[in-house]
């Protein structure tokens, strides 16, 4: 895919980490959610006091079994959210078990409150009408959201945790050694039998048609990688390099090739390919993943 020019790339690079939440954001939003959802209704003052002290609700809610579980939920989330931004060591060891119980109880209470489970939400559908959001906030109007006034949120503050957070998400989607190849479950979404002729691409210009053909070919490589057919993927991607010598998806092919080389154990070749790739496109969106692969280690 044709890349951004250097100036645009620099702007994205400069801004990327500036969107990360800081340590307090996760806690503040969670507190607001729990209050608006009614989970901590009745202990609002305790919540505020506890949150301010960094030990929310733990003691104040202990008198009620259900409430104590919710408090434990709050405590555990508060301690773990932010991914690196919280001192986990402050959480008493016993709270781990409490959290587990809380989690289970929470799920249980949800299921019992829905005796006849409604049709489950299809992935990606997420039909969330704005009214739904408003409805969820019946106890707290938009204008009275708790503690969401913009405090001094320094962009990039807590940078290490920000990066860790990003890394965590990458890990969540398999963004490590073989991320590009191993985490290509989206390949299933490739319509390999999509319309390929002019009739199927009516209205599309020749360039779009060429891109479509190239994308389908790349999808075959990614499918093979996903299925563990690494040698076949490597053969395909090398053939496609010739077939699409002037194609737009060369960076994607190069990245897939590096993954395939790693997967078949050709580490030296992977490293050579990675060096060439990074020399040409040091700030490519794939660069971080390539550096994290066998080729970058």
């Amino acid at each position, binding site marked *: 895919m044709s890349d951004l020019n250097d100036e645009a790339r620099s702007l994205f690079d400069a801004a990327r980490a500036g969107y990360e939440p800081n340590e307090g954001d996760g806690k503040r939003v*969670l507190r607001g959610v729990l209050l608006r959802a009614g989970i901590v209704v009745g202990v609002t003052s305790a919540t505020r006091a506890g949150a301010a002290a960094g030990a929310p609700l733990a003691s104040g809610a202990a008198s009620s079994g259900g409430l104590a579980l919710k408090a434990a939920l709050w405590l555990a989330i508060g301690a773990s959210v932010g991914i690196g931004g919280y001192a986990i060591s402050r959480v008493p060891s016993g709270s781990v078990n409490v959290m587990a119980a809380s989690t289970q109880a929470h799920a249980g209470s949800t299921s019992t409150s829905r005796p006849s489970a409604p049709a489950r939400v299809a992935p990606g559908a997420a039909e969330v009408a704005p009214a739904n959001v408003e409805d969820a906030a019946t106890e707290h109007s938009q204008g009275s959201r708790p503690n969401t006034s913009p405090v001094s949120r320094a962009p990039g503050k807590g940078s290490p945790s920000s990066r860790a957070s990003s890394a965590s998400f990458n890990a969540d989607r398999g963004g490590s050694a073989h991320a590009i190849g191993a985490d290509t479950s989206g390949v299933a*979404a490739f319509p390999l039998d999509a319309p390929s002729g002019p009739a199927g691409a009516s209205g599309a210009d020749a360039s779009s048609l060429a891109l479509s053909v190239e994308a389908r070919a790349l999808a075959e490589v990614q499918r093979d990688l996903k299925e563990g057919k690494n040698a076949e993927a490597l053969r395909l991607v090398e053939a496609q390099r010739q077939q699409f010598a002037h194609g737009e998806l060369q960076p994607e092919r190069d990245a897939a090739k590096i993954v395939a080389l790693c997967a078949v154990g050709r580490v030296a070749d992977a490293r050579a390919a990675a060096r060439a790739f990074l020399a040409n496109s040091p700030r490519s969106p794939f660069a971080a993943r390539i550096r994290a692969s066998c080729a970058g280690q």
Partner: protein
Amino acid sequence: MISPLAAADAAGDAPAGIGTVPSFAELYQQHFAFVWRTLWRLGVWQASVADAAQDVFLVIHRRHADLLGNDVARSWVYGIVVRVARDYRRGQLRKGLPGGLDPDEVSDPQATNAVQQLEQHRAVVTLNRLLDTLDDEKREVLVLVELEQMTVPEIAELLRTNANTLYTRLRAARQDFARALARHRATERKQP
């Protein structure tokens, strides 16, 4: 250091596998940072990101029992984020207030890296203004590729969209963005 949630998972006490329904706590832990930055990147004003994130997680809290399983949670969460972000953007358009650099939100000037943080924040403001010139679909794919650094197949899964369509959309988004940046630089040069 192991987190309480991770410890619970390790003990087999918490449902976290593929096909299981994650708890709200798990969803919050796994997705908060992604929700926050994506709302902002999709055009929610910085001052409203916390409110919008609350809205997202309120919906998640109400509906997470309807989720099909942990393996589709990210796609499900992203769908909610997109809806909420669009709702906020519509509200912002009605308000007609400019989104921009708020001096009160700039980092502590006494911080040793304050200059770097200010530059980063300026880059965010400039980038958001340029992204504002794109339509929603182009903005989404450009943000996911260039900022979230996802691959097109991943995005295809996330959006449940044809990857070929996304490649075409990404190309157009990059072209539109380059034009917007060129206009922005030309305007800067005209200013004293």
